């Protein structure tokens, strides 16, 4: 029986879907960002005589990398996209709206069972809602804008079973880091399906966190079968009847069990997301800056977790605490409650919504020797500046901001 990806693909192709086959896949939702968006436009103008695209109602620009542009080059690239969008009647979610992969979820554009592509390597985040999302380069995206489809080699699917229930406090980020450690090299080029009690109960925000790091696990996409919360969310947002795709008795390439009963706060040391250690085993690392945000941990639940820890306290001296909500909607929710006030009073800098540090964006880079704790998903050398980046949960990041050293939440 087919796996989730095979079922979704079969709904979007006339070719035979079978792992290893290359098929032509119809794409429901097509997006490009300010990064690579201008190259998408240039490809279209260079390779086609007509500048019109296949279906403007399915096509969007989402500006999130350099928002608003802090270099003339980026501003030029954004303007190239805007002008192309105007001519074609494409909607632009312009600077300030937030991270594209989150915007398409909030707007009800990406929902269970659809296929979607974007110029963002974390577009597979849509596995969190049971949709097929894939990051692609500007040639693929230009081709999809023009034709509504692209080729895809059907990947094998690996089933991941989480066993047990954690007894210590944990967050979805700790679960994601555990998976990067455990699944690295085992899922390269594969689709994943996640099962187990721990994911059944995961909130949409937690699902986004887990799915966002499948790229770092080396996988194509990680599907989390939609639960009631996800279905209700979409019934409200999209106004459509949602029919999630589930696998029944599917045939997998292999199954991998991961014991989560000992799950606890984890941290990925530079320069690799798979360099995962227990927070309590990392001692005496002086922290200079903390970044809360990104497509991995930029939801209001993440901000809430940070505010809860910082409430009524001040961050350590000479620490820069950079907070960047993933979207404008998250911003509004932060203002509605006490979150914004508590973060501000604790000493945070709160920026408008975008990718921020991950894309050399609006909140500044780290310098040589600077140690940053970040809730994002990559700590490759040079990725977020010249300094050393440690990847952790919002809770660990907040605790570290308070003490000035890498600190687990149980230590404060």
């Amino acid at each position, binding site marked *: 029986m087919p796996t989730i990806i095979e079922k979704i693909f079969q709904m979007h192709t006339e070719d035979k879907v079978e792992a290893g086959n290359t098929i032509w896949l119809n794409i429901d939702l097509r997006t490009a960002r300010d990064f690579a968006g201008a190259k998408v436009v240039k490809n279209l103008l260079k390779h086609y005589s007509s500048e019109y695209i296949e279906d403007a109602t399915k096509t969007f620009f989402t500006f999130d990398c350099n928002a608003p542009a802090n270099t003339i080059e980026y501003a030029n690239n954004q303007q190239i996209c805007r002008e192309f969008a105007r001519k074609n009647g494409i909607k632009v979610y312009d600077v300030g709206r937030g991270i594209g992969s989150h915007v398409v979820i909030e707007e009800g554009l990406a929902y269970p069972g659809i296929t979607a592509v974007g110029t963002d390597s974390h577009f597979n985040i849509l596995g969190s809602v049971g949709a097929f999302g894939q990051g692609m*380069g500007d040639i693929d995206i230009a081709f999809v804008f023009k034709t509504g489809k692209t080729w895809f080699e059907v990947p094998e699917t690996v089933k991941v079973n989480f066993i047990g229930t954690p007894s210590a406090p944990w967050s979805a980020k700790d679960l994601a880091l555990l998976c990067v450690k455990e699944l690295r090299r085992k899922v390269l080029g594969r689709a994943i399906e996640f099962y187990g009690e721990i994911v059944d109960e995961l909130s949409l925000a937690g699902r986004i966190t887990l799915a966002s790091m499948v790229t770092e696990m080396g996988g194509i996409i990680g599907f989390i079968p939609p639960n009631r919360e996800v279905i209700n969310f979409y019934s409200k947002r999209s106004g459509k009847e949602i029919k999630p795709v589930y696998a029944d008795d599917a045939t997998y390439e292999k199954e991998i069990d991961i014991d989560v009963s000992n799950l606890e706060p984890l941290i990925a040391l530079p320069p690799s997301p798979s360099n995962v250690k227990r927070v309590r085993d990392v001692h005496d690392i002086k922290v200079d800056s903390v970044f809360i945000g990104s497509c991995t941990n930029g939801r209001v639940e993440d901000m809430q977790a940070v505010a809860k820890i910082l409430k009524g306290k001040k961050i350590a001296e000479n620490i820069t605490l950079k907070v960047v909500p993933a979207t404008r909607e998250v911003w509004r929710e932060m203002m509605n409650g006490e979150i914004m006030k508590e973060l501000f009073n604790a000493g945070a800098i709160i920026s408008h919504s975008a990718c921020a540090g991950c894309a050399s964006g609006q909140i500044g880079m780290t310098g040589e020797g600077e140690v940053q704790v970040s809730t994002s998903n990559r700590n490759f050398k040079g990725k977020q500046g010249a300094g050393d980046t440690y990847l952790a949960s919002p809770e660990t990041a907040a605790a570290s901001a308070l003490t000035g050293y890498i600190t687990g939440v149980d230590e404060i």
Partner: protein
Amino acid sequence: MKVKGRVWKIEKDGKLMDDIDTDMIYHNKYLHITEQEEMAKYAFSNLEGWQDFPEKARKGDIIFAGENFGCGSSRQHAVDCFIALGINAIVAKSFGAIYKRNAINSGLAVLECNALDMAEVETGDEIEIDFETGEIKKNGICILKAKPMNKIQYAIYLAGNLFRYAEGI
């Protein structure tokens, strides 16, 4: 189709490097560049010990690398910079999924070969690769077998890129 070229083994401590990510290949500070020719000088510009690669590389050269080459971002720049340098092919133990697609779509030959470590090839050696069979030859003798390109991959390669391939179907 066969190509010949001079090998660059991207090594660290005598071993093919694994997990060379797109920021090492083409750093995010140059992402605003949209002209392919301009990207050549930034190939491997953030890979320790290899920053001078663009000066040393010659048209037709072939790159050997370890596991998960090109993991990370979806940036086409990380492929385009090698095309701009005239690199003939990249052979790696495995590739990041998006990187592999980007390379295929741009007509840059990428081949996977698990046993690449075993090859008796040094940097600077001339080799010949047959894309249809995956055979890698040195001095006319087959020394390795990579996974051949699949049909669509090969057809896009021959057409030059995805756009030109699609015109013909």
